[in-house]
């Protein structure tokens, strides 16, 4: 009887807990019209250094003043695209606005998980007016423009320490398996990015040939053909390629100091490693930090054989509060706020326009035209013409922050986007990656066998000791006791 009472009470308590939770949820939906639930990458939005206000709070204030209503923004963060995707799958409709990367946006689009943006001229006029023509073109040609508005973008490459590593050594995928840098390189502990690196390693030769053909003065390869080739090559998931990638990644892992996602930046600054496979925004951050805190100069190189161009974009999951979400995207797309974001997080905004361009031109990363080593970098492809003139900046330090943030057209020509994998391919590549991470089974078999031998020896010794083999002879007058 008592047991029943106990259980009953427990059930009641559990029930009470759930109903409270349910009640909370209901409240949220009642407030729904005016609540905006955003999920963004960690450390991916500006925070005012003086007031400590984030752009999110500024948006709240701005929107309230503008429309004379109370709104509430619930801002949360995620760590990987896969986690965000999981959350949305398990709990559809928990977010109004999220910011996944390219391949995840494609996956969500293909699974019909996204709402379309309204006519961009009305819904996100800032992007329509200031968005970079390059970005818009990229989105239009790929058919993403209805579902996503780009936020940040960049390339992938190696951050390197010029004290130990030459540009030529860093500007190739082979850097990851270069014996010279044994224990001084890093790999990303993130399967999608590392697979890209693995393909780069597995196909270095053919990629290098095509790149040579494209960049040669009398080259016959057109830009479009080269792009098609790159896209197919880097997104190749045939059994044969995956096998080669596994082999190469095992080699790269043996050469690497660590598998990391975040610590790489620090390890570069402190000199623990010399070569860090990184996203361009992290590269800018690492270069800034190293310069400020440890007087170390770091550089950034995009492999000559071709690399990845990525972007993160705002998308609205099905059932989102479109009006508020669009207003927020429009707010962060203003040149002023784009600049704030770039200053704070180091990544490159997808917003162009005169204000952003002038900020780049006058930043510490760039130099004056009359500077001795000034090199011209033409960014017209990204910014379009500024006041009828080509968008040209000067820089005396190539391969550093400025080129990491704004790669020249020459670099973007050899960069391609990642595509999403279907479930079956995903499983294959994940198991491949797990095998790479697991290391050599035989080594552990040997260790275990060694342990077994030692244990057996110990048991024998203990048994012998119990029998008194090691005991000293018993003194006269005493009887030996066992």
């Amino acid at each position, binding site marked *: 009887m008592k047991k029943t009472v106990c259980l009953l009470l427990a059930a009641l308590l*559990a029930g009470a807990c759930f109903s409270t939770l349910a009640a909370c949820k209901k409240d949220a939906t009642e407030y729904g019209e005016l609540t905006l639930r955003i999920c963004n990458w960690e450390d991916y939005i500006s925070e005012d250094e003086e007031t400590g206000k984030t752009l999110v709070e500024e948006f709240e204030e701005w929107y309230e003043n503008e429309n004379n209503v109370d709104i509430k923004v619930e801002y949360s963060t995620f760590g990987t695209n896969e986690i965000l995707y999981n959350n949305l799958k398990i709990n559809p409709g928990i977010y109004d606005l999220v910011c996944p990367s390219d391949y995840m946006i494609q996956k969500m689009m293909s699974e019909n998980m996204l709402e379309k943006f309204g006519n961009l001229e009305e819904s996100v006029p800032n992007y329509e007016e200031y968005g970079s023509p390059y970005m818009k073109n990229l989105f239009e040609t790929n058919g993403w423009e209805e579902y996503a508005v780009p936020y940040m973008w960049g390339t992938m490459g190696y951050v390197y320490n010029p004290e130990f590593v030459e540009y030529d050594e860093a500007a190739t995928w082979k850097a990851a398996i270069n014996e010279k840098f044994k224990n001084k390189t890093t790999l990303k502990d993130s399967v999608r990015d590392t697979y890209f690196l693995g393909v780069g390693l597995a196909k270095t030769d053919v990629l290098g040939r095509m790149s040579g053909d494209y960049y040669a003065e009398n080259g016959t390869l057109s830009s479009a053909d080269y792009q098609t080739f790159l896209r197919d090559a880097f997104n190749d998931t045939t059994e044969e390629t995956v096998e080669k990638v596994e082999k190469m990644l095992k080699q790269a892992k043996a050469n690497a100091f660590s598998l990391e996602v975040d610590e790489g930046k620090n390890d570069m600054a402190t000199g*623990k490693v010399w070569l860090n496979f990184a996203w361009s925004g992290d590269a800018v951050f690492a270069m800034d930090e190293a310069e400020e805190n440890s007087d170390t100069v770091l550089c950034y190189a995009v492999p000559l054989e071709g690399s990845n161009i990525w972007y993160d974009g705002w998308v609205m999951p099905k059932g989102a509060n479109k009006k508020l979400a669009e207003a927020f995207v429009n707010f962060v797309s203003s040149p002023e706020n784009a600049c704030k974001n770039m200053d704070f997080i180091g990544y490159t905004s997808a917003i162009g326009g005169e204000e952003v361009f002038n900020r780049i031109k006058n930043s510490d990363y760039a130099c004056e035209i009359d500077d001795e080593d000034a090199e011209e970098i033409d960014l017209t492809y990204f910014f379009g013409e500024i006041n009828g003139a080509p968008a040209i900046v000067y820089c005396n330090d190539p391969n550093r922050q400025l080129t990491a943030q704004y790669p020249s057209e020459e670099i973007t020509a050899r960069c391609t986007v990642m595509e999403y994998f279907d479930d079956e391919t*995903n499983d294959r590549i994940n198991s491949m990656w*797990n095998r790479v991470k697991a290391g050599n089974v035989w080594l552990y078999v040997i260790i275990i066998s060694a342990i077994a031998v030692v244990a057996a020896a110990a048991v024998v010794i203990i048994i012998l000791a*119990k029998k008194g083999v090691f005991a000293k002879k018993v003194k006269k007058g005493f009887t030996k006791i066992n």
Partner: protein
Amino acid sequence: MKLRFSRKHLCIPYAAFLALFVIAPIIIMLYYAFTDRNGAFTVMNFGRIFSDVSTISAILTSVSVAIITTVICLLLGYPVAYILARSGLKRAPTLLILFITPMWINFVLRLNALKEFFSLINLLDKSPYLNTVIGMVYDFLPFMILPLYTTLIKMDNSLVEASQDLGANKVTTFINVILPLSMPGIISGITMVFMPTMTNYVISDILGRSQITILGKLIENHFMQNNWNMGAAISMFLLSAMFVFTWLTGGFKSDSEGVARGSGLW
């Protein structure tokens, strides 16, 4: 039925807690472990544990790291516990506190400090396996010393004296009297070191620079890769392995032997 409040009802909050946060999660894990991606029943997840190189490798890694760590902890911890408990040092409790103090600081902080120290003495970029073992020993040594200490301090000294009176030398006394009497402490020390070492992947991540994959890490990988079913299956496998291990070491006995388990710690 008459409802009367008795002392037994005080356990209801805990029963509810247990049901919500221990029993329910296990049931959910069981569900995932025995279903595939589409929710259909399958036992293939368990089949994959023994057919996939990555799981076998992770199991062997975990087991070898756990055994080595436990043995080192025992070899280091036993003499310390013995001296503290039996030499009649006046300051023994103070010394004991010194061994426990590190546990008051968050272990992630301590590990990061250890990482910097390793890099200072140029050990960090050497063997990740060795670094992981050192980190594990560093972190779990107190868990070995404490149960040993509590067992040894409670040991009846007259038994040792009797052994010596009857002519046994020190080695014989130790092997035939002290060691068998401290067995409950040794077993509970082993359980408290062996089991968490199998899964504590924070240590292998920080000191082994993620180059070593132990079972805990593999489970995390599967969850991160959106493969909950495989992750749950490995967790269930690990849980049953732990269960068997505890059962073999007599951890479920409720007689006086069990009293020494973890006493002084929890």
